C-alpha cells in the first residue's frame, strides 16, 4: 500500500493565508489556492459505494418496525378506535393512538390552538390516527390496516380559492383566514398615473410536493432515560429541540444523529409526528423502533410548496422605468399555520427599482396537508408572476426583456427598513454576461425567423431573481482538531444535504492549513458529539459554516504560532505558518517543524474553536441570478421540449466549482418540475382527497425531461463585507428564475402567455385549440 502518511500537505510553495494576531478575525481572502477548485466530494466514496449509512439503513439488534394509520378523510372526527383485532395479529408488539395515555402530548403550538400528537379531529387527509410496531414492516402494515376506526366525516374545503366564500366549511372555529400581510411604499396611485403603460395579469402556481428520494423517518432507541434518534434530517439540533420539548426531556438526554440524509429541500428542516411516535413506541415496547413513511404518506403530511394565486398590476414608462407595482396573492399553508403565502411577494417588493409598491398577501386554511419550506419559499412563485409581467411590459413598450431588467437594477434593498445596500450585487453582470454567453439576441432572432415554416416552434426566454436570505448568520460553532502529522478533523453540527457542505469545509481548512482536503476527516450532524448548527437550508449553510470553519482553522494556526514562539524564543508576530513548519520572517534559520513542537507533544493535538461572527451592520447579503433558456413547442401536440439552459449566478465566491455546477443544474431541474410537470391534484369537489400521491401520477422531471445542454456561469463579485469567505448561498437562487424563464420562452415560441403551472401538453394543446383562427 502507498504510504499516505507523507501525503498530507499541499504542494510545496502553495501560498498559505497570513495568520492574524490572536483574538483577531482573519481578513477576507483575495486569491485562493484550494477554495474555488473543482474537487470531487470528500464523502463521494461513501455515497457511491453503499457504505454511507442513511438513517433508513440503520438496523439495530432487536429492532421493531413501525407503521402509521392515517386519516383517509380531509376532515373527520374520530369517534372510536378499535385495535383489538390488530393486536392479535402475528408479530405485533405495540399499538398507540389517542387512547394511549402516554401519547397525550402537545405536538406543536399554533395560533389556532395547540396541535395534539393524536388530534381527535383530523383536519387533513393523512393526519395520524394510530401507530403500530411489529417484528417486520409487513406485519406492522397488516396490523395498521386491521385497526378499525369509526369516523364522523365532516364537511371540508380543499380549494383555497373557495375558502373565503360564504357558507364554506371552516377548518378551525375562528374561520378560514390564517393571516393577511400588507406592505406599501411610495404612492401607488401616483405611480400608475406616471406610467405610460399599465398592465394587469393574474397567475397561478400549483402545489408541489418535495418528495425527496429518502422518505421521512427515523430509528429511535432508548438507553434507560436517554433517547437516541437517527433521523433523515436537514438539522439534527432542530430535531433535538422539538423532540425534547414534546417529550419534556432535557436536551442532553436527546441525541439526534443524521450523518447522511437522502434529500429534504426544506421538508426535513423539522421532525415529524412520526419522530415522536417512533420514540414513544420504542419507550413503551422497550425495543428500538424504525419508522419510515411510505412514499404515499410523504405526499400527504410532510409539507409542500403551497399553491399561489397572484395578480400583478405594473406601470412602466416608455423608457423602461418602472413606476408602480401592485401585487396580491391568495394562498394556503393547508390545515395549520404554515406560511402559505410567505415571501411570495418578496420579488415584487425588492428585485427591481420601483418607488411605488403595494402588496397584499392572504393566507387561508384548507383541509389539506400543512406546507413546509420548499427550496426558496415563495420565490419561484413570485418570479412566475413578476418575471412574466416584466416580459409583457417589455413587449408593450417595444423593449428587449433583458434591457428592461437592466434599466431597473437596485443597489439597495428597497423593501428593508433603512434601504440597506447589498454587500455585493452582480445582478447586472448576471444579466449582461449571461445574455452574452447564451447568445441571447442571436437566439431570439433565429427562433423568430424559424417560425413560419413548421409546426415545431422555437422560443427563447429568460428571467431573473434574488433570494430573500442567503447571507448566513450566527450562531454556529465548529471545532478543528489538528493532529501532529498535519492532518485534521472537523467537528461541525451541520448536515450535508448533498450540496457539498463537507467538501467545501474540507477545502476551507485545506486553504488555511496548507493541507490536502482529503487529509481532513469530518464529523457532522450529531447532537451528541458535534458542535451546534442551525438546520441546513435557505442557502445559508456555506455562508454560515464556512466563516466559522475558517475561524477555527485560523485559531489552530494562532495556537501553533504561540507554541513555536515559545520553542524558538521569539515573538509570535514575527513567525509565519508554512504548513509543515513555522519560521521567522526575519531569520529563516529560526524554524521548527509542527510535529517537533514540544507544547503540541504535551497536549497531543491542537484544537481551534470557530464561531460565526456577526453580519455587517446596515448592509444586507443576497445571491442573484439570471437564467436563459431555449425551448421547442409542438403546435399540434402541445409537447414542450427544453433545449438548453444557461444560468448566470451571483452567489459570491465559488467555493467548489464542481459541486457549484451540480447544485445549479439541480435547481434548474427542480424549476423545470414547477414549470412543466408537477401538480398536486386534490379531488376538491367530492372527497377532498389527493388523487396523485405517487411518482407515477405526480410527475417529477426525469432524465428525459431535462436538456443535456446546461451551462452554469458563475459571476463572482468580490464581496469583502458579507463574511470572511466572500461566499453567498446558492441552493435557492438556482431554482428561482427557472420556471418563469421557461414560461417566457414558451410565449416567445407560441404567442401564448401561460399563466398557470404546469405547462404540460394537456394545457398547451387546449390553449392552442382555443386560439382564434389565423387569417
Amino acid at each position: 500500500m502507498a504510504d499516505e502518511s507523507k501525503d498530507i500537505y499541499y504542494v510545496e510553495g502553495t501560498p498559505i493565508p497570513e495568520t492574524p494576531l490572536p483574538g483577531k478575525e482573519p481578513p477576507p481572502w483575495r486569491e485562493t489556492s484550494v477554495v474555488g477548485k473543482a474537487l470531487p466530494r470528500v464523502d463521494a466514496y461513501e455515497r457511491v459505494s453503499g457504505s454511507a449509512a442513511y438513517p433508513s439503513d440503520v438496523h439495530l439488534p432487536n429492532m421493531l418496525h413501525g407503521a402509521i394509520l392515517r386519516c383517509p378523510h380531509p376532515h373527520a372526527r374520530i369517534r372510536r378506535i378499535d385495535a383489538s383485532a390488530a393486536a392479535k395479529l402475528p408479530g405485533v408488539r405495540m399499538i398507540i393512538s389517542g387512547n394511549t395515555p402516554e401519547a397525550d402530548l402537545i405536538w406543536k403550538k399554533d395560533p389556532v390552538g395547540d396541535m395534539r400528537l393524536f388530534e381527535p379531529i383530523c383536519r387533513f387527509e393523512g393526519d395520524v390516527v394510530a401507530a403500530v410496531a411489529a417484528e417486520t414492516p409487513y406485519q406492522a402494515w397488516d396490523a395498521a390496516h386491521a385497526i378499525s376506526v369509526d369516523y364522523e366525516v365532516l364537511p371540508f374545503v380543499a380549494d383555497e380559492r373557495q375558502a373565503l366564500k360564504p357558507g364554506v366549511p371552516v377548518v378551525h372555529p375562528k374561520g378560514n383566514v390564517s393571516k393577511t400581510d400588507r406592505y406599501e411604499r411610495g404612492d401607488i396611485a401616483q405611480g400608475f398615473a406616471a406610467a405610460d403603460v399599465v398592465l394587469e395579469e393574474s397567475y397561478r402556481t400549483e402545489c408541489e410536493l418535495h418528495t425527496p428520494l429518502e422518505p421521512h423517518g427515523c430509528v429511535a432507541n432508548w438507553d434507560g432515560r436517554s433517547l437516541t434518534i437517527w433521523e433523515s434530517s436537514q438539522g439534527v439540533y432542530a430535531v433535538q429541540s422539538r423532540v425534547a420539548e414534546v417529550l419534556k426531556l432535557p436536551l442532553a438526554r436527546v441525541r439526534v444523529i443524521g450523518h447522511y440524509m437522502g434529500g429534504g429541500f426544506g421538508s426535513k428542516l423539522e421532525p415529524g409526528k412520526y419522530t415522536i411516535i417512533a420514540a414513544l413506541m420504542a419507550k413503551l415496547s422497550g425495543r428500538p423502533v424504525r419508522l419510515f413513511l411510505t412514499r404515499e404518506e410523504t405526499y400527504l403530511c410532510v409539507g409542500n410548496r403551497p399553491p399561489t394565486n397572484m395578480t400583478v398590476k405594473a406601470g412602466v414608462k416608455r423608457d423602461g422605468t418602472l413606476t408602480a407595482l401592485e401585487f396580491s396573492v391568495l394562498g394556503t399553508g393547508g390545515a395549520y399555520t404554515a406560511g402559505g403565502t410567505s415571501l411570495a411577494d418578496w420579488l415584487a417588493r425588492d428585485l427591481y427599482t420601483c418607488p411605488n409598491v403595494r402588496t397584499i398577501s392572504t393566507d387561508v386554511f384548507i383541509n389539506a396537508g400543512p406546507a413546509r419550506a420548499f427550496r426558496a419559499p415563495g420565490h419561484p412563485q413570485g418570479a412566475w408572476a413578476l418575471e412574466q409581467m416584466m416580459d409583457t411590459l417589455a413587449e408593450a413598450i417595444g423593449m428587449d426583456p433583458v434591457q428592461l431588467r437592466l434599466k431597473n437594477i437596485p443597489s439597495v434593498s428597497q423593501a428593508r427598513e433603512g434601504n440597506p445596500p447589498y454587500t455585493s450585487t452582480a445582478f447586472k453582470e448576471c444579466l449582461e454576461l449571461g445574455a452574452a454567453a447564451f447568445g441571447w439576441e442571436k437566439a431570439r432572432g433565429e427562433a423568430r425567423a424559424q417560425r413560419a415554416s413548421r409546426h415545431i416552434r422555437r422560443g427563447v426566454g429568460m428571467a431573473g431573481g434574488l433570494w430573500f436570505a442567503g447571507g448566513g448568520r450566527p450562531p454556529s460553532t465548529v471545532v478543528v482538531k489538528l493532529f501532529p502529522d498535519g492532518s485534521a478533523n472537523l467537528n461541525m453540527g451541520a448536515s450535508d444535504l448533498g450540496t457539498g457542505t463537507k467538501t467545501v469545509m474540507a477545502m476551507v481548512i485545506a486553504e488555511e492549513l496548507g493541507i490536502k482536503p482529503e487529509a481532513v476527516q469530518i464529523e457532522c450532524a450529531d447532537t451528541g458529539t458535534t458542535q451546534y448548527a442551525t438546520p441546513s437550508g435557505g442557502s445559508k449553510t456555506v455562508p454560515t459554516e464556512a466563516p466559522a470553519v475558517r475561524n477555527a482553522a485560523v485559531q489552530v494556526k494562532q495556537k501553533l504560532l504561540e507554541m513555536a514562539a515559545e520553542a524558538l524564543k521569539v515573538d509570535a508576530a514575527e513567525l509565519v505558518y508554512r504548513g509543515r513548519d513555522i519560521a521567522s520572517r526575519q531569520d529563516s534559520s529560526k524554524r521548527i517543524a509542527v510535529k517537533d513542537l514540544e507544547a503540541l507533544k504535551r497536549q497531543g493535538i491542537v484544537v481551534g474553536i470557530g464561531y460565526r461572527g456577526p453580519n455587517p451592520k446596515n448592509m444586507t447579503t443576497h445571491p442573484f441570478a439570471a437564467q436563459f433558456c431555449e425551448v421547442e413547442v409542438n403546435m399540434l401536440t402541445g409537447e414542450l421540449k427544453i433545449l438548453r439552459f444557461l444560468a448566470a449566478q451571483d452567489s459570491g465566491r465559488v467555493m467548489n466549482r464542481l459541486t457549484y455546477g451540480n447544485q445549479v443544474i439541480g435547481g434548474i431541474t427542480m424549476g423545470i418540475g414547477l414549470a412543466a410537470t408537477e401538480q398536486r391534484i386534490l379531488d376538491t369537489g367530492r372527497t377532498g382527497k389527493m388523487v396523485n400521491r405517487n411518482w407515477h401520477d405526480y410527475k417529477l422531471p426525469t432524465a428525459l425531461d431535462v436538456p443535456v445542454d446546461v451551462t452554469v456561469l458563475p459571476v463572482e463579485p468580490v464581496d469583502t463585507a458579507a463574511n470572511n469567505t466572500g461566499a453567498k448561498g446558492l441552493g435557492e437562487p438556482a431554482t428561482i428564475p427557472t420556471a418563469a424563464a421557461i414560461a417566457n420562452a414558451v410565449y416567445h415560441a407560441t404567442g401564448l402567455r401561460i399563466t398557470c403551472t404546469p405547462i404540460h401538453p394537456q394545457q398547451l394543446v387546449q390553449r392552442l385549440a382555443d386560439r382564434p383562427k389565423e387569417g
Partner: protein
Amino acid sequence: MSANPTNGPGGITRRNFLTTVGAGAIGAAVSENALAAGKEVAPPQVTPAGRSVEVALRVNGRTHVVQAETRWTLLHVLREVIGLTGAKPGCERGECGACTVLIDGIPRYACLTLAVEVQGHDVTTLEGLMDGEKLGTVQAAFVEADAFQCGYCTPGQVMAVEGLLRANPNPSVEEIRRGVSGNLCRCGAYQHIFKAAHRAAELKAGK
C-alpha cells in the same frame, strides 16, 4: 430500460413468475383455461402470503439461504435479512429506481421483484461492483463527474448505468438518457449522471 422487462435474456419471465407465486386470481384463470380445453388438471399450489419458505439467493456471487415470506420483496430480503443496504427503498412501487439491482445482468427494480422469484438467478447489487475497498468503474466515474448530490438514488443510478453498459458498451447520449430514465433524481443531477455514464463507458473501454 434497455431490456424488455417481461422477457429479458435470462431475466424473469412471466411464465416463471406465475409458477413461483401462485395467487388466487391467477390460479382461477389457469383452471378456467384448463376447463375450456376439456382437460382436468390439479389446481396449482398456492403458498399463503405470510408463510415462510426457504429461499436460496445468489447475490454478488455468493449463495444465501434465507427464510422468507413469499410476499417479501427482493429489496426487503437484501436489506433486512442479508444486510446489503446499497439498494434503497424510495417508493416500493416501481417508480423511482433507487432499488435497482442487476438480475442476470439486467437492471431490475428490487422492490417489484419477490425474493422467491429470483431463485436460480444471479443478483448483483451496488456492493457487488466493488473490488474489495476499490470502487467499480461506474462508481469511480460517478465520483469523477460528481454525478449525485444526496446520494440516495445513486445506487440505483449506478446499477442502471452498469446494466446499460453491459448491454451497450458505447451508448449515445440519447441511449444514456433512456437508460437512466427509470431512475428519479430529485436533487436533479441528471446532466452529471449523463457525463458519468459516458466517462464510465470510456473507462471500461480502457480510455
